[in-house]
């Protein structure tokens, strides 16, 4: 049903556009496989994460089709595409949160700094400790601000107050939240505003010094001012962390990211440096999506 709906939408969208850009998208909608257009610049960057011919099924429905893409080290990479195209699924596959869904089946692999993520010998808890993740809706834990930030250290059994204090301050400063909460670290995190909660979640994610930071539409539940603060924060994280961000917002992708990948119906369509994708994409399909002519 989902496929059929999307097909119809793609057709009408294509028909309405003045320059029909949808050859490849139509092919995808018809169920054919297409090659991704990956720019040379991406391949020259040293990768932190390599997605290698990755397929994923929810039960009988295939959600990701042969995704192959390197994620560059210490850069911000944005995943864009219409709803249901598999961006979040791809993100949740990186730290294997999809393992929690019973009917999921995968083939292919991903490698984090060379270590196979889907290797049966890989301990999924160790793996998740090497990554940080921030979700659509802020999800602070029901405990104090301080304990939220040092959560990943606590579950490792860290008790040294000095270490915890240091990590807490560094992470909150890193998430541009320190000045707002430094006087009430022991207050409940649930008393913070939505934007503060989301930055707290980012602080929590970077507390464990992750090798890659996964942001799943981090601003979709926030008002414009809070969104602005989180975007500024992503700018600051640039260069220090490898960030993979899913977003619906084209402006956000163009403002915050170094590289942008356009996905459609579970396939990677085009992937390149953000300025190129937004100003001179190779494919007309990408252009029509990023300029808002369909999607």
């Amino acid at each position: 049903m989902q496929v059929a709906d999307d097909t119809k939408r793609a057709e009408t969208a294509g028909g309405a556009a003045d320059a029909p850009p949808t050859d490849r998208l139509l092919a995808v909608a018809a169920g054919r496989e297409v090659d991704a257009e990956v720019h040379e610049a991406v391949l020259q960057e040293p990768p932190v994460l390599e997605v290698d011919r990755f397929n994923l099924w929810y039960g009988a429905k295939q959600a990701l089709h042969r995704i192959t893409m390197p994620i560059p080290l210490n850069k911000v990479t944005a995943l864009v595409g219409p709803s249901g195209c598999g961006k979040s699924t791809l993100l949740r596959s990186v730290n294997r949160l999809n393992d929690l869904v019973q009917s999921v089946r995968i083939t292919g692999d991903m490698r984090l700094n060379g270590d196979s993520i889907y290797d049966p010998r890989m301990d999924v808890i160790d793996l998740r400790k090497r990554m940080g993740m921030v979700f659509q809706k802020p999800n602070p834990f029901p405990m104090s601000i301080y304990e939220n930030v040092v959560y990943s250290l606590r579950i490792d059994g860290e008790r040294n107050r000095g270490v915890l204090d240091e990590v807490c301050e560094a992470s909150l400063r890193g998430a541009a939240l320190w000045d707002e909460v430094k006087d009430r670290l022991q207050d409940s995190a649930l008393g913070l505003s939505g934007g503060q909660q989301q930055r707290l979640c980012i602080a929590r994610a970077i507390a464990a010094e992750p090798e890659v930071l996964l942001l799943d539409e981090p601003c979709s539940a926030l008002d414009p001012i809070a969104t602005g603060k989180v975007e500024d924060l992503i700018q600051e994280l640039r260069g220090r962390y490898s960030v993979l961000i899913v977003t619906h917002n084209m402006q956000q992708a163009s403002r915050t990211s170094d590289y942008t990948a356009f996905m459609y119906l579970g396939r990677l369509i085009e992937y390149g440096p953000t300025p190129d994708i937004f100003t001179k994409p190779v494919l007309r399909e990408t252009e029509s999506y990023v300029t808002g002519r369909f999607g």
Partner: protein
Amino acid sequence: MSSESSRPRRHRSAHATLSAHGEPWVWITAGSLALTIVMIVGLLAFIAVRGAATFWPVPLELVQLADGRRVLGEVTQQEPAVAARGEAAARPARRLMRSGDFAATGTHSEWIDDAAIVGTSRPEWATVVERMEGGRLHGFPKRLLHGAELVAEGPPAVWEAFTREHPAARRRVHEIRRIDKVERGSLQRELRASRLAVVRAGLDFGAGSAQQAAAAEAAERVAARVAAEERELDERTSALRDQNAGWAVEFETASGGTTTVPLDGVVRGWQPNRLSPAGRLRLYASRWAEFLADDPREANSAGGVFPAIWGTVVMTLMMALLVAPFGVLAALYLREYASRGPVTTAVRVAINNLAGVPSIVYGAFGLGFFCYGLGAGIDELFFEASLVADGQPTFGTGGLLWASLTLALLTLPVVIVATEEALSAVPNSMREGSYACGAGKWQTIRRIVLPRALPGIMTGLILAMARGAGEVAPLMLVGVKKLALDLPVDGTFPFVHPEREFMHLAYLIYDVGFQSPDSQAARPMVFTITFLLVAIIALLNVAAIGIRARLRRRYVVQQF
């Protein structure tokens, strides 16, 4: 109607039906709620008013009857005349009087037709005497005697002497009771322990063994010492008794006879007709204090209910402590670990059905499994000596532990269902957030899910406590007794005695209300005990709700 055109009209479409506007439904739902509230408030108010009135001193009326008899008593009930209708005969107006002259009349209360009354009065010196034995006495103070010596005569003088001498006599009675209960009790326990040691030595090493001989020797030494100490106690108590002996008050009853009451046999006495308002309040407070803090007298129909209060509270708390871990762990497995499938569904349905099993079935199960199964096993393993020595089971009979366990079982479904609800209300995003930080499943449950679900779990516990505290039927089978003055938690080592039988307010209601020889006198007590039970359950609930509110503030409130 004519003004309708000038006013802004409500626009109501011709198609808008009554059900679309829904006004009747507002009325019906609000009416149902109002009815419920009226019933609840009415019931509680009824219990509270009747329960609180029990100890209020009521005036005594002296009624002169046409046949020359005189009755002195409290009017407890009045009925208007009933006209003849069909077969039923007419009945004149009448009143029920609590006469308090059982020795002469052989009845505690009697109906008196208003027509037979010649005159009524409220004599100033009409006195109510609460006796240790023999129930109430209504009469006029006549003489106060000390042996053959006449101390005072005439109501005012007698009453003055009574108020002077009575407190000391009561103090001596309480001292005797304390010596008997505490000091003599501990000696008896010592004696029993030494006797049991002999039996145990015989069981362990064989009859006639050296060990048994040694134990027997030790037991003899203990027996000799206990006998000596008992003699000393006897001297002390008999000295106290001697001091009280001889003191007696004579009362003239309405029927003209004289009743003599030993001074130390009077719990308290008062003249309701000459009490000042402050005196009334003092008396009221002192009777409540006795009710709350003392042991029962006279087949539970007088005195206090302290052992029952203690038993109810301890049992309810123990039940909550037992049911909480079981229920929460079971619900955790069902919700967090078990995979969804027909088996889980079947288990869930079974748990819900358990909540509908009649409570007496749990009582029978508790008696069979806990008392006669587990308890008998424990007795054989650890208390064999007691079983052999005097055939007395320790755990093999009803007791606090078994009653609490039975009620824990009874309330388990409530806790499991409430906990499951609470767990499923924890947002999945929190669990995912925790997993994404590299936490394991148990770490996530312990640090995120459980704290967040705690208020909901507390709700389940509150429901369970309310249900458990008011339950009687199963308790009758597994440990509640009509009279059990040894408290399940007291000052003697090891302080908690889970094997002891105990008293319970709800059972007391049944016992006093339906098993009492003097049902008219017992009825106000029933209301008071009910009032107390409701108040205790409410208090426990308020405490639990307070804890829940605090937890909710800490873990759940989300503000933007």
